[in-house]
């Protein structure tokens, strides 16, 4: 084998070392950071992940999302009658694949969203969750 130009430390980098090296590379090359908020963004606001209450297409199984920081809906936004859903926060969980498959099948069978099925199951498990926070408008409580 010819001597390689690659630094010895790079031989057999695992995933962690590879990611570190990639990060160093991005920094050195001044490649923009995906996570660094642009100037003027609410850097110091720790609640950036809070989503407006009205977004209900949330998918609980999905890892964190970047929700464009919409202002919270106010009374001027056409607000339906009745109670409003509470603000939400997105988070990600890893489900065993076979559980995920069951969830997927249930979505198919019930036409409910994953989020609705999961929240309903949590309520069955003793959590306090209001109907308005589980089901989309027009979806029956099943």
């Amino acid at each position, binding site marked *: 084998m010819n001597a390689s130009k690659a630094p010895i430390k*790079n031989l057999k980098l695992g995933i962690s070392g*590879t*990611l570190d090296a990639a990060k160093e590379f*991005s920094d050195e090359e001044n490649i923009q950071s995906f996570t660094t908020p642009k100037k003027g963004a609410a850097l110091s606001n720790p609640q950036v992940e809070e989503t407006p209450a009205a977004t209900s297409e949330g998918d609980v199984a999905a*890892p964190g999302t970047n929700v464009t920081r919409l202002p919270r809906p106010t009374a001027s936004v056409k607000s339906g009658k009745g109670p409003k859903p509470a603000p939400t926060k997105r988070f990600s969980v890893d489900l065993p694949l076979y559980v995920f498959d069951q969830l*997927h099948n249930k979505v198919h069978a019930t036409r409910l969203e994953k989020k609705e099925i999961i929240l309903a199951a949590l309520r069955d498990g003793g959590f306090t969750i209001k109907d308005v926070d589980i089901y989309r408008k027009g979806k029956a409580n099943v």
Partner: protein
Amino acid sequence: MSNPHNAKFISFASPKGGVGKSTTCLAIAGALLAAGKRVRIIDFDQTETINRWYGDSDTAQAIPNLTVEKGPTDNLKDYFDHLWETATDYVLIDLAGSLSDVTIAIASFATLTITPAKVSEPDIIEANKMADKMHRLAARIGKPINHVILLNEVPSSISNDELALITQIDQSNLRRFKTLIHRRSAFSKTFSRGTLPHLAPQQDPKALAEIDAIMLEVGSILEPARQKAAA
């Protein structure tokens, strides 16, 4: 470097927007699904093109063996570490039309990174920039990176200028798929119909043939990686 469950990570990345990353990501997802594979799509584009496509369409959500999720925006290293350790089957990663540290991080471990480009000078220049970064990133991490350009939205009648540009690409050390993806309504309909070319009720045989040919090329890129890992 191989991951524990031999998952294949295919990322769709380009410094330029609107080149067909999301479209080709979905077309390839459809071909894999039609071949009986499981596909997980992670949407890292903040415009959430694919995540919305999925969330808004009952048809899309009813596709078996397909899951679509939004990528996170923080703790990315932990996320990628975990993804590497736990992922199975095919993981397709759709990225924003810009070059960011997340593009670089994903390319550093992806089995294959695809950069779609139109046969136009600005697109090829951007694809070339991407290839150059990949080349230097490979040297940094001490392992080869599979980066291939996919000529997309090729018009049905190709001009001499376009032909000359393709010749130029082939004389350079840019690596491209030999198969060209033409401009076809089967591809542009993906988003409005919530279905994928391979799974659409009315299939366009020419579109499918193109994607199938791409899949053969993809297979031959992924295959040696697998053989090496097994050795």
